[in-house]
Structure formats: C-alpha cells, structure tokens
C-alpha cells in the first residue's frame, strides 16, 4: 500500500506565472525511502510546496493521495495534521516565539486531530528532551525563539526534531543537506534513519548523491522539466554523480 501517491500532477506557480509540474507520477509505499534528484529548475521545491498545499501553488490537474485519500481540498495545516511533513530547505524564523511553546502547540494540534488528549507542559518536556538527546541538541534550544539566530546546522536539526515529535506518515525532505557540513549531515541523516518505519514513507529531495550515502534510498527518481523521467535503484544516484544530469538525461531520451 502506498502512503503517498501522486497521479499525473500538473501545477502552476503564481509567482513564476507558469506551469512547473507537467504530469508527475510517483508512488511511495509504506516503509520505503524514495529520493528525488534533478537539476536546477526541474521543479523539486515546487513539488514539496505543492504537496504541502502552499498558497500560490495551484494544482491544475491530477491528484495527490495521502494514505489512499485525496488531500487536494485540504488546507496546508490540515494536510500537516493528516500526517504530511515537509522539512524546509530554508526554515523560517519566528522572532520572539518560544520554541517549546511552538513545538507543544504543534504536537497538541496533531494529537487533537487523532482524538488524543493534549500533552501537559511537563509531559511534553519529557518527550522533547528524549528526542533532542537523540539529535545531540542542547536543552537551551527550547528557550530560544523558533529558528531565530540558529546556525544552518541547528535549523536543519530542528526540522528533524519536529519530524520526530510529529510522527508523520509521509515526510518530504526538501534539500535537507544544503548548507550542512559533514558532521551535521551525519546527525541529520541518523535522525532520519531512526524514524524509518514500516508505517512511514520518505521522499528525499536532493541535488547531490552525498546525502544518499547516509540515507539509503529504496528508489531514486530523476525529475526533469516537471516530471519523473527515470527511476531506478540507489545505483542511479551513483550513475548520475558520475555522468551528470545532461548526459544521463540525453541518454534517457535516446
């Protein structure tokens, strides 16, 4: 059973004033990690935003199913609560917004959706501490303002922390490796690997093969001009690294 199904997806981006996705098909079964690679301008970030339901990213055809259910009509916050998580390439600063309060509100919004009771401040703190330890994050994170003054590595780790706390069905990682040094990359990858589970699917969007050395994908897809042009096993990423997009894509076309 696929947790994420994308059927013939067409989408336009308001700010760009044009269509970016042109009939994209993709299935990510439960328990699997799929990687999406592609050159600049292929539509990688657009795919992430469109899945998450960002304003200004309009679906003009096709469908997106989360755990078998279409989410096209759902607002961004509803999609999140249904279990779709997007780790941002550029996490957004919220000055003055206490990180602990932010996380607890998010966790409780998800729990309410599932009909579970709210976590008290103390219960939440216990949970957060455990997850933070796993990501080698110091506790003073919780007292800071969300993403404000965080280093690049801290921001990415914070994204993974949120993913761990929110326990999504489908996690989309948008260029999580960008701006990370090798140590931070390892910590982030370990965080992701720890969350790999039979009831969860990952879609890892990346430019480079490097991240995939640490997060082993089951399937690699190549996105070009708004659709998947080639799919294969992990070896496809290595081939891409060796040959470059242009050669590989020309080869694919031939």
């Amino acid at each position, binding site marked *: 059973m696929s947790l994420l199904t994308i059927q013939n997806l067409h989408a336009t981006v308001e700010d760009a004033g044009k269509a970016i996705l042109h009939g994209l098909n993709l299935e990510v079964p439960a328990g699997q990690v799929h990687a999406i690679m592609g050159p600049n301008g292929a539509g990688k970030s657009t795919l992430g935003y469109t899945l998450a339901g*960002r304003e200004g990213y309009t679906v003009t055809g096709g469908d997106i199913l989360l755990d078998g259910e279409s989410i096209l009509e759902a607002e961004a916050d509803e999609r999140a609560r249904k279990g779709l998580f997007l780790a941002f390439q550029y996490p957004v600063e919220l000055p003055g917004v206490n990180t602990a309060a932010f996380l607890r509100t998010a966790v409780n919004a998800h729990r309410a*959706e599932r009909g579970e009771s709210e976590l008290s401040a103390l219960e939440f703190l216990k949970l957060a501490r455990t997850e933070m330890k796993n990501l080698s994050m110091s506790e003073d994170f919780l007292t800071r303002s969300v993403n404000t003054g965080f280093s690049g590595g801290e921001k990415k780790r914070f994204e993974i922390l949120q993913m761990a706390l929110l326990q999504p069905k489908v996690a989309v990682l948008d260029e999580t490796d960008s701006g990370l040094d090798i140590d931070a990359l390892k910590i982030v990858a370990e965080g992701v690997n720890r969350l790999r589970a039979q009831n969860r699917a990952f879609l890892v969007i990346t430019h480079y093969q490097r991240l995939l050395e640490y997060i082993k994908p089951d399937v690699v897809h190549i996105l070009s001009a708004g659709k998947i042009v080639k799919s294969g096993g992990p070896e496809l990423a290595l081939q891409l690294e060796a040959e470059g997009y242009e050669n590989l894509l020309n080869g694919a076309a031939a």
Partner: protein
Amino acid sequence: MPAEASTLQTLEDLGDTYRYGFVTDIESDTIPAGLTEDTVRFISAKKNEPVWLLDWRLKALKRWQNMTEPTWQKPDITPIDYQSISYYSAPKSMSDKPKSIDDIDPELRRTYEKLGIPLAEQEILAGVERPAGSKPMAVDAVFDSVSVATTFREELKKAGVIFCPISEAVREYPELVQKYLGSVVPQGDNFYAALNSAVFTDGSFVYIPEGVNCPMELSTYFRINERNTGQFERTLIIAEKGSYVSYLEGCTAPQRDENQLHAAVVELVAMEGAEIKYSTVQNWYPGDAEGKGGIYNFVTKRGACRGAHSKISWTQVETGSSITWKYPSCILEGDNSVGEFYSVALTRRKQQADTGTKMFHIGKNTRSVIISKGISADQGDNMYRGLVTIGPKAHGSRNFTQCDSLLIGDQCGAHTVPYIEVKNSTSTVEHEATTSKISDDQLFYCAQRGLSEQDAVSMIVNGFAKEVLQHLPMEFAVEAQKLLGISLEGSVG
C-alpha cells in the same frame, strides 16, 4: 499576497470578537447632560467633599472653559459635544453605601463575575492557584462614576498600606490627598486633564508607607456601563521612601453605536528608593467594523521620581478603544532615578492609537528605557509619539528607545515620531525603529506544523510583543497573550 486577501476576508466573516460588550441592566442615578458650575457642585456634594476640593474643582472648570481642544494629534476625532455628556452616573443601589461585599446588588456582582473579576475575598484566598512567586490581588471595582467595592482593605491596612476609592481618601486622608493631588499633573496641564480635575468622580488611592513592600498586587477595574456618560477617574499612588508597589488597571465597556469619552488622570509619586510598577490592560469597546462607536480614551498619566534611586515603570497593553491618545510619562527628578515604558498597542478595523511616552531627565545619572510595539491590522492606525528630554543638569543620563511596528494587511498604518532633546554633553540617547509584516513564509511554516491560522497569528504577534508582555505581572501576562490572540482573530497578513 493571496494569504492576506483570504485572511482579511476571514476576519470580516468572523464579525465581532469583543467579549465584554454586554450591558448591565440596573437602575442608575444619572444626572442630566451638561457641564456647568452646578454640575461640579453636584458631584462634589454627592461625594461629601470638603470645601477645599470643591474650590479646586471650580478653579479647574474655569481653566477648562478657557482652553481649547488640542489639534496636533494624528487621530481623526469626531467633534465631542461636552454639553451632551452626563458627568455623573451611579447605580441606585450604591446611594446607601453597602456595608460589605455581600451587600452589593447581585446584578453588579454578576457583572464582575462575567468580567472575570472576583470581588469575594474568600474565593480569592481559597481559590485558584497562583503562579509561583506571584502575590494575591486586591481589587477596587469602579462602575461608571463610583467605586462599588474594594477588597482586602483590612488585610492591607495591617501592612500600613492604604488602598481605597479616592472619594473616600478625600474624606479620610485629606492631608495626603491635598498634598499630592495635581502635584504631578497640574490642572492646566492639558484640556482633558483640566476637564478631569473639574469633574473627576472615582478612582483609586494608594499609599505605601516608608519601607513597605506591598504584600498584594493592587488593581482597579474600570467599567463604563451607562449610555451617554463619560468616565473621569482619578488615580493617585504615593510610594514613600524605600517602598514597592505593583498596580494594575483593567478596563471594559458595553458595545454602543455612539462614542463615549474616558478622560482619566493618573498621578504617581515615588520617593527615595521607591518603586512603582504600573500596568494597564486596556480593552475598552473598540467600535465596529465601520468605525462606529467605541471609547475615546484620552488619558493623562504621569509619574514623578522625586527621590534618588527611585523607579517608575509603565507597562501597557492597549487593544481596545476607538481612539487611544495617551503618553504615560516619567519625571526623573531624583539622581539615579529610572523611568521605563513598555507598550503594546494593537489597532484593527478603524481603531486609531496615538501613544508613547515622555521621559524628562532632570537629575544626574537618570536612566530611561522605552520599548514600544505597535500592531496594526485592517485599517488600524498606530502612532508612536515620544519625547526624551535630557536637561542641562542631568549629567551622565541615558535613554534607550526601541519602536517596532508590525503591519497586517495593506490598508493599515504605522508611524513613529520621536522627539529628542539633549542639553548636556555627557548623556547618551539611542533610538532604534523597525517595521515588519507577518510574512507568507512564516504563516506557511506554522501551517505546515499543523497550526491553524488563528494560532499562528496569535503566536507570531505574541512573539513580537514578548519583550513588553514579560513586564506584566505573571497572571496578567497570560491574560494579555490571550487578549492579543482574540483581538486579532481571523486577521492575518
């Protein structure tokens, strides 16, 4: 921006979010509209005042009659007909002053219950858990022109603290009132202060004796109920040498189509080493979406740091009123005295706020801090206006000012007008200002974590206002956070 358009629409759909707009159905003694010498004599007689105070009022009336309304403000004010306002209104049941809180008209008690203001001391003592480190709260409840109850007076008296309606203080502690009344805000200070001096009705009087750390938080809750009345309260707080007091005022009023005037005067006096912390959560009825109705909140608040090392700290959260026009100020006379002003002003729909502070540095090494956060949504308009003046003898003085504006939507306004005068060469003045918007990126980020738009905006706005809110007494910081969230319900940009 798409998010902006859709959320401003949600805002309109939500309609009224003002939760205190009800009217208490109660019989009142309300005098006919109009202001003459007779009105002043009537009020003075009603309150059994000594002759000196009547004379003081009449002098103020004369001054007021020779003054004209100021016109330099930013807000656009529908002309006020001062002869169409009633200057005294009190619940009939208050004419024989109730002996105890239990004797108060049940309808009045219910009003305060609805407002969430506990008047029964037993309940407060037995009741809710307080945050660690916070003090219990004594309340003076002012309804239109009279104080209907003041709690914990006996308890406070044991510590030597006087907390009572000012009308009573005039009779019980005349020498104190006579000494300080008008000593910080002179009668002729401005048009509205003169008006208040002539017709003020009730308000709170606080006296903290030397060396006493007031054992409770003191608060006054102002409620306007009657139609076509104004509220003209007067508050006087005196903190003797080495004493400390934290005082908080809250305000609400019913929803009405016509504007109502609230012109208060607040005077604070801090002697050597004394500290007064004065907090306001102002939630007067703001008017409807078309700008109809709402309170005109024209208030003069000023504190004098008379003694060395004294400190006065103003914290205000202004979410209500159709027009807010006030500048809580500090006169830093004592050497090394400190003045602080922390403000959040939120305007939405057609609300207008022209607010800020004045810091007068007179003594040596005096310091002042001004943190002002303006939030404007819909067609709301926010003006920070402030004056920092450092006198020729105020050597080594310092001021730091920070004015931040947050805009929600594309029809609101934010303005910053700082006036700075420095008359010596050993002082330092800093001014910082920023203007920002809630970005689509921020809203999307929050939504992606499952937060509703409501929660996201409330969180971002509270984050913006945090530096100010943290100066409120703990329980009220929580209330104020909720208030900011509620006041902005549906409004995002």
